[in-house]
């Protein structure tokens, strides 16, 4: 089962190294990691997706992360109601023969075309992991030249925030 950890950390150089290093040396697998500043410029939020079949491994991951002095707060939000998003950009081969079809797919997924070249287009889409994977699959037959995908970011729904959660 994949676990989603929402981690507030000090926004300082080296914090990412501490966290990534911890995962590497203790043999935990990171599925994805996204990090950015929060409303408080001294704090960053990391959304870490961890593969953990064994609950004991997840427990160790969270305990070890909590031990880091730079980790301010950690929540395993897997069981909570949360909104999560990933962003994908896909460069697809495109000419006059299939342009219409591609645009139709883009519309269906409520994605956007953000660049158009002579033989390619770049499509941007956001959504949860399932949607993002689905658009990738749908565009594959046209020939994907390049692709980039962020890790998942997530926020718990409702009134909870980092001061009272």
């Amino acid at each position, binding site marked *: 089962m994949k676990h989603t950890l929402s981690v507030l950390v000090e926004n300082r150089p080296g914090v990412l190294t*501490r966290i990534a290093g911890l995962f590497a040396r203790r043999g935990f697998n990171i599925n994805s990691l996204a990090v950015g500043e929060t409303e408080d410029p001294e704090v960053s939020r990391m959304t870490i997706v961890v593969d953990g079949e064994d609950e*004991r491994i997840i427990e160790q991951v969270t305990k070890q992360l909590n031990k880091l002095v730079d980790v301010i707060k950690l929540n395993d939000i897997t069981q909570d109601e949360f909104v999560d998003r990933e962003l994908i950009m896909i460069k697809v081969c495109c000419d006059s023969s299939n342009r219409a079809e591609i645009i139709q797919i883009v519309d269906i997924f409520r994605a956007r075309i953000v660049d158009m070249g002579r033989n390619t287009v770049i499509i941007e889409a956001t959504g949860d992991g399932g949607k993002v994977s689905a658009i990738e699959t749908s565009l594959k037959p046209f020939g994907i030249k390049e692709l980039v995908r962020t890790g998942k970011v997530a926020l718990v729904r409702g009134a909870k925030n980092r001061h009272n959660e």
Partner: protein
Amino acid sequence: MASTITGAQALVKILEAEGVKQVFGYPGGAVLPIYDALLDSEIEHVLVRHEQGSVHMANGYARTSGQVGVCMATSGPGATNLVTGIATAYMDSVPVVIITGQVATSMVGTDAFQEVDITGITIPITKHNYLVKETKDIPRIMKEAFHIARSGRPGPVLVDIPKDVASDICIAEPSDKVELRGYKPNYKGHPQQIERALKMINQSQKPVIYVGGGVINSRATEQLLEFAEKAQIPVTTTLMGLGSFPENHKLSLRMLGLHGTPFANYAVTQADLLIGLGVRFDDRVTGAIEKFAPQAKIIHIDIDPAEIGKNVGVDVPIVGDLRLVLIDLISKLEPQEHSEWLEQIRRWKAEHPLQYGQGGKLRPQYVMEKLGELTNHNALVTSDVGQHQMWAAQYYAFERPRGFLTSGGLGTMGYGFPAAIGAQMADRDALVVAVTGDGSFQMAMQEMGTAVEQDLPIKIMLFNNNCLALVRQLQHFYCDKRYTAVNFTGNPDFAKFAECYNAVGLKIETPEQVEPVLKEALNNGKLTIIEVKISEEELVLPMVPNARGLDEMVEFPYGEE
């Protein structure tokens, strides 16, 4: 003071405010400003012979005094030479603050002369570390470093200070408060879990208390004694826990694990309840984990939540300071008896004592036993790593906390002698004995110069078999006696080596010499090497073979049964 002092001077002021008496170190270019500032302080600088010695000394100082030990080195090789010692302190939860010089900020990242990313290198082996980028941060960071090192589960904290950061003017006032929103150790045990633990203790017929170094760190040895006596529960200790419970006490099972006593290992295997206090269920203790205490419910009390449930499943976890948790437990505990269980343990002790053949040869076990007797089991003993370490653990019979300093977690050869120097610096009146071997001692013997300079009357008991005999023992059991790379044919005469430092060199070669030579050494008031010549064929027994349970130990050498 605000605008007139340098970062280095601000740093020294914090050291003074933290009560630091000694700094163990080795100078160099990048750390010059800090050495310069230290010159104007009352703090004594102990000049070592190799940076690794400085961190082991700070470790020995900390473990003896219960205060934070401090060491210092320059950038680059000075810093990297500390790495083994930092890892040693980390594994054994020893509070040490390590200060390293760094190349100037304008040079950082350019592969400058003697530049190394020591904060990067030491992330996995420090509790926390800092690269100080601005002079104004020095007072805050130094305060935090001491706070982190000594609170919660103690550990080493490294502060890396670029040369210009140390020499610039420091405009920050030191504050008394430390504010770390991501670091708040929990000291008080959860009352509900304590209730559950009490219930489990009341229901148990065959309980065992299993004690580690955490009891010493939390100064809970008195509470441990009270708890064990009130509940009439036998106590076994790990290597790090030796001395936390008097080994001559009738409830003592002495050390458990790989080279533990048969009665400790049997008791743990048969127990229906195991109460782990400040331990981490290390592989040297558990043997094959699936065979460890198979019938026991487990109560685990530790200040570090990450240790609970890491290696074994736990029935009652209690996160907190052992001293406080034990006080809670004792106050609510009804006095108990476990006479049947204690009778069983008495039988095990009678039938399976620690033993070795006598037969006229000089036996290291006998020497350690004698040392225990002659020092009332009360000396401050340090050890290196090897067979001698295990004989010290098995045969000295420790009676007091902080009486045995050894590298338990990392198993660092070359630890014992510098640790003894740190220990003796912390307690000038103590009788300090560094138990070592010819292998380990040669990893640290350059510190003889430091011991002479500081006028320390340490007794170095050096078991010499011209062999790395614990490795030889592994080859004996696991490599079909194909011995390789274990014999030293170029060893010096260690007694003469002592003499060339104007120290005393003595030798023990027969059983008859043991008592008189030890007495001479213990009473001469001088730095002394006692070279004890033993056979390379000695084995450390009992021994739990790889992948076996604790009750499947080998008790006797083949042919001696």
